[in-house]
C-alpha cells in the first residue's frame, strides 16, 4: 500500500499530510521554529500522529532552509576563483560576491586558448585569517566543455590545503559562466547547513522509528533522496509544491492557472496539458542569478490581509499586512473585510467589516450603497492585480525563445484554461476571478495544507542532456557535468541513441530513482564542415522526466 507523508516547512507554519492510496487521512499544522527546523518537523509528525510509522513508504519535505540561509545572508565565506579568459568584461554583470581572476582560457569547443599558470596560484589570498581556505569554488569560462583548468587547480588546492572543500563549476554543466559561477559559489556556501540538517533529520526520524526514505522537493517540482540533492536545488520548493497540489486535483491533461492566495502573497503557476511550465531561465534568488531549474511561477504581494489605504484617487492596495483583517479583530481595512461585507465569505464580523469600510468613506457618503461600491472596487483591484500577473506568466510561456524553424511553425496551441484557486483568501474571490480571467474556477481541496499535499504527491524529475562533439571526440552531460571521451564513430546515428540511454540509466542509478515515462527530445545534428568536407558532428539530445505527481488525490 502506498503511504506518503508530505511536509511543507513554511515561513510561519509547517504543515503535514498523510495519504494512503491517494486519500488524505490526516493533516497537521504547527508553528515553524525558524531556529530549529528539525524539531519543527518532528513536532508536526507527532501532531500528525501516524497510525503506523512502519507503513510509511516515503516522506517528502519542502523546506525554506536553504532559501532563508541565502536571503538572510547566513553563508560562510567562500573563496571564488575564476578563469574568465577574454570576452565580455566581468563587471558588465552585477557580481554580488567577490572573486579572484586567474589566467587560462578555453574556447567553445573545449580547446585551450591560453594555458593556466600555476605560479599565480601560490599568490592567491584567502578570506580566512588562518591563511588556509575552507571553501573554494573554482569556475572557468567554457569549463562545461573542458574542465582541465578547474581540475588542475583543484589538484593543487587539495595537495596544499588538505582540509579545504572544493566545488568546481563544470559540475553545473550548462552554459552561462556568470550563473555557473554564482551557482557553484552558493551551493558550496549552503552545503554545510544543509548537510547538518539532513543528518539531524535522519537521526530524529530514526528516533521516531520512521524508516521510510526521505526526499526533498526541488524548485522544478521534482524530488530527490535527501543525500543526493544539491542543496541549492531546494530553493523555491514552496511555490512548486502549490503547483503540484493543483496537479493532484486536476484532470491529467488539463491546462490550469494555479492561484494560491495567502494573507499577504499570492503565488501563481501554469500547468499546460498536464505539465507544469518550467522557467526557461534559471532561478533568481536575492541578488544571485543561478542555473537552478525552477517552475515558472509568480509571487505578487497581494492577499486577503493586504492593507487598504485611502488616497486621492480613492484607495490603494498596499504590499503589506498589519495583522489580520478588521472584521477578524485586526486594525486595518483589508480585502477580507470587503468579502465579508458582500457576503462572499462567512467568517468574521460583518458589523466590523462595515465599520472598516465606513471609515474609508467621506462623512457625507456613509451609506450602504457606498460601502457596497467600495467593497466591490476593492475586490476588483485585487482580482486585477492577480490577472496582470497571470498575463505576465502567459507571456513568459508564449515568448519562450525558438531556435528552429519547426519550433516557430508549431507554436504552443492556444489552450483553454481553467483556474484552480486555493489558500485562505480563495473562497471569496472565486466568482470575481473567474469573470476577470474568463475561465471556470474550481476551489482546491484542503487549501490549508495544499503545499504539504503537493510535496507528498511529488515524483522525481530527471533531465539528461547530451552534448557530443565527435570531431573533438568528447561528450558532456549538462546536468551532472560529466565529461568523457567519445569512442564511437564520427557520424553516429543509432549509436548515439543507445549512448544516451546508457547515460540515463547510469544517472538514474546514481540518483537512486526509478524512471518511467521518460520523454526524449529529437536529436539535433550539426555536421561539422572543414574545407567543404564533413569531418564530424555535434549532436545534442536530451531525455526528460517532467515534473508531475504520482497520482490524483481521491476526494
Amino acid at each position, binding site marked *: 500500500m502506498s503511504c506518503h507523508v508530505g511536509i511543507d516547512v513554511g515561513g510561519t507554519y509547517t504543515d503535514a499530510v498523510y495519504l494512503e492510496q491517494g486519500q488524505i487521512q490526516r493533516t497537521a499544522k504547527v508553528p515553524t521554529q525558524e531556529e530549529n527546523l528539525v524539531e519543527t518537523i518532528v513536532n508536526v509528525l507527532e501532531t500528525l500522529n501516524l497510525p503506523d510509522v512502519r507503513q510509511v513508504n516515503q516522506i517528502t519535505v519542502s523546506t525554506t532552509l536553504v532559501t532563508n540561509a541565502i536571503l538572510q545572508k547566513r553563508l560562510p565565506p567562500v573563496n571564488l576563483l575564476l578563469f574568465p579568459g*577574454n*570576452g*565580455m*568584461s566581468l563587471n*558588465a*554583470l*552585477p557580481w554580488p560576491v567577490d572573486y579572484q581572476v586567474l589566467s587560462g582560457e578555453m*574556447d*567553445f*569547443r573545449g*580547446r585551450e*586558448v591560453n594555458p593556466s599558470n600555476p605560479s599565480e596560484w601560490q599568490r592567491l589570498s584567502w578570506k580566512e585569517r588562518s591563511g588556509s581556505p575552507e571553501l573554494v569554488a573554482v569556475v572557468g*569560462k*567554457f569549463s*562545461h*566543455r573542458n574542465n582541465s583548468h578547474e581540475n588542475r587547480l583543484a589538484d593543487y588546492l587539495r595537495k596544499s590545503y588538505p582540509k579545504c572543500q572544493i566545488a568546481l563549476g563544470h559540475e553545473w554543466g550548462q*552554459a*552561462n*559562466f*556568470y*550563473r555557473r559561477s554564482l551557482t557553484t559559489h552558493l551551493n558550496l556556501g549552503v552545503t554545510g547547513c544543509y548537510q547538518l540538517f539532513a543528518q539531524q533529520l535522519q537521526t530524529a526520524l530514526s528516533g521516531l522509528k520512521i524508516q521510510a526514505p526521505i526526499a526533498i522537493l526541488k524548485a522544478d517540482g521534482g524530488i530527490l533522496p535527501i543525500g543526493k540533492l544539491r542543496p541549492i536545488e531546494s530553493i523555491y520548493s514552496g511555490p512548486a509544491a502549490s503547483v503540484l497540489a493543483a496537479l493532484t486535483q486536476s484532470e491529467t491533461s488539463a491546462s490550469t492557472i494555479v492561484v494560491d492566495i495567502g494573507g499577504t502573497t499570492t503565488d501563481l503557476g501554469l500547468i499546460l496539458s498536464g505539465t507544469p511550465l518550467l522557467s526557461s*531561465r534559471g532561478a533568481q534568488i536575492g541578488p544571485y*542569478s543561478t542555473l537552478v531549474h525552477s517552475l515558472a511561477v509568480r509571487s505578487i504581494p497581494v492577499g486577503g490581509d493586504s492593507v487598504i489605504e485611502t488616497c486621492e484617487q480613492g484607495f490603494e492596495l498596499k504590499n503589506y499586512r498589519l495583522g489580520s483583517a478588521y472584521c477578524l479583530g485586526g486594525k486595518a481595512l483589508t480585502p477580507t473585510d470587503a468579502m465579508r461585507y458582500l457576503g462572499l465569505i462567512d467568517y468574521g464580523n460583518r458589523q466590523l467589516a462595515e465599520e472598516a469600510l465606513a471609515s474609508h468613506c467621506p462623512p457625507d457618503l456613509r451609506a450602504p450603497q457606498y460601502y457596497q461600491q467600495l467593497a466591490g472596487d476593492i475586490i476588483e483591484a485585487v482580482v486585477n492585480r492577480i490577472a496582470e500577473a497571470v498575463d505576465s506568466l502567459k507571456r513568459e510561456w*508564449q*515568448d*519562450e*525563445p*525558438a*531556435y*528552429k*524553424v*519547426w519550433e*516557430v*511553425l508549431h507554436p504552443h496551441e492556444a489552450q483553454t484554461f481553467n483556474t484552480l484557486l486555493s489558500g485562505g483568501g480563495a473562497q471569496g474571490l472565486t466568482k470575481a476571478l473567474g469573470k476577470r480571467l474568463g475561465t471556470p474556477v474550481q476551489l482546491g481541496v484542503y487549501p490549508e495544507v495544499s503545499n504539504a499535499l503537493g510535496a507528498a504527491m511529488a515524483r522525481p524529475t530527471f533531465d539528461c542532456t547530451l552534448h557530443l562533439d565527435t570531431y573533438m571526440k568528447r561528450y558532456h552531460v549538462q546536468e551532472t557535468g560529466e565529461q568523457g571521451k567519445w569512442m564511437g564513430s564520427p557520424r553516429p546515428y543509432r549509436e548515439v541513441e543507445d549512448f544516451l540511454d546508457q547515460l540515463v540509466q547510469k544517472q538514474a542509478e546514481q540518483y537512486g530513482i526509478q524512471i518511467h515515462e521518460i520523454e526524449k527530445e529529437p536529436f*539535433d*545534428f*550539426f*555536421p*561539422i*564542415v572543414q574545407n*567543404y*568536407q*564533413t569531418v564530424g558532428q*555535434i549532436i545534442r539530445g536530451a531525455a526528460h522526466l517532467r515534473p508531475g505527481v504520482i497520482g490524483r488525490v481521491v476526494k
Partner: protein
Amino acid sequence: MKRTGILFFPAFDWSLGNSHPEREERLLYTQEQLFEEGILDLPQMKQFTPRVASLADVAQAQALFPTPSLYPETLDPHLIAAGSAILLGEARIRGEISNGFVLVRPPGHHSGATVWGNRGFCTINNEAILINQLRARYGIKKIAIVDTDVHHGDGTQDIFYHDPNILFISLHQDGRTLYPGSGFIDEQGGPNAWGQTLNIPLPPGTGDEGYHYVLETWVLPRLQAFKPELIINSAGQDNHFTDPLASMNLTASGYGRITELLQPDLAVLEGGYSIEGALPFVNLAILLALAGEDYHHVREPQKIGRSSLPLATLKPYVETLKKQTQMVKPDFTIHNVKFFPPGEWVYIPRSVYYDTEGFQETRQDFVRKCNHCAGTVYIESQRSHAKTKSVLVRIPFEACPQCEQAGYDLWEYVQQHHQEIHSGLLQNQLHNQHQVWQRKKD
C-alpha cells in the same frame, strides 16, 4: 535605461546543403559564446521570440516570380528571418528598445526587387521587407542602410535604387575581386534618387584602421547630411580576417567599433562564414557595442595571418575614390515604349545571375522621371530559357497622382494586351496594397 533587443534565430534545422556555408552549424558557436558569456543576463538586454512574415509583407518590397504561390523554393526559414526583423523594428519604433540586433539566418541582402530563386545565399531581403513595413505601418519616411558585409549589397541597392527617401551605403571588397561583381562608384541611384546610393569598394586587405577611417571621413558625414529617422546596419561579418570567402582584415573588436561609430537602430546579420574563427566573437562584439558595454576584450583566438593594407596606402585610394564619385554625372537613356503612359521613362537594362542554381534573369527596368515623387517603376523580367515574362509595377510611397495613374494604366495594359507577360505584381506602396496576377491559360 537604454535597452538593447536581441532576436536570435539560428535556424538550427535548416541549411542550403550539407556542406554549404549556410548550414545548421553557422550560428552554433555563436550561441555557445553568447550564452556562456551570459549576455542575455545584462540588465539592458531583452530577448525576443521570432515571428513569421506574411507573403503580403514581402510583396511590399519584392516580387516573387512567377507568383508568390508558384514560387518553387520553401520560404519558411526566410519568412521567419524577415518576420523577426519586422518584429524587432516594431519594438524599436514603439520605443521598447533603443537598438537591437536581428541575429538570424538566412541572410537577404543579395535578394533584389524581383526574385526567381536563391542567389548569394539569399532568397528574400530581410532589411528591405522590414523597411517597407515600417514605412507602411508607422509612417517612417527617411531610412539609411549601411551595408558592412564584405559583399556588395546588390539586392538592397536594387530594391531602393529609385527611392530618394532611402539612403543606401555599401562598403565592400572591390567588385572586381569578389562576388557579386558590382557596387562600383557609378552606381549612385536612379534619375529620381541620384546620389542616394553610395558604393565604397575597398581593396582586399583593408583592416580595422582603414575601415574606421572610411566610416569617419565619408560614411558618417553622409549620414549626418541625410538626417535619417532610422539607421539599419546590414551587419555581414565576412570582412573578418579569418573569412574563407573574402580577403579583408577586420577583427572582432574592429566590428565593435563599426557598431559604435554607426550607432544603428537595428543591426541585421548578413553574411560571414568563418563560423568558428569569427562569428562567435564578431557577434559578441556587435551586441556589446549596441548594449553600450566594453567590447575591447573580445578577442578571437587566431592572430591575423595575412598582410594588412597600411592606412597610409589606403588614404590616398579613398581620397581618389571620393573625388571620382563626385565626378560621376547621371547619364540616363530615355526610352518611351509605345504603350507607356505620358512622361519620360528612363530605361535601365539589367542582368542578374542566380549562382545557387545557376541561371540568369534578364530585366528591362523603366522608371518614370518625376519631380514630385520617386516615380513609378516598371520591370519586365525573364528567367533564362523561359518563354514567358513576369512584371513588377511599383507605385512608390508618396506617389504623385500622375505616377499612381501611370502605374494602374501599365498594370491594366499588361493584363489585357501584353501577351508575352504571364504573371505579375502590382506594388502600391502609397496605399499599402498589392495585387498578384496570373494570366489564365487559354
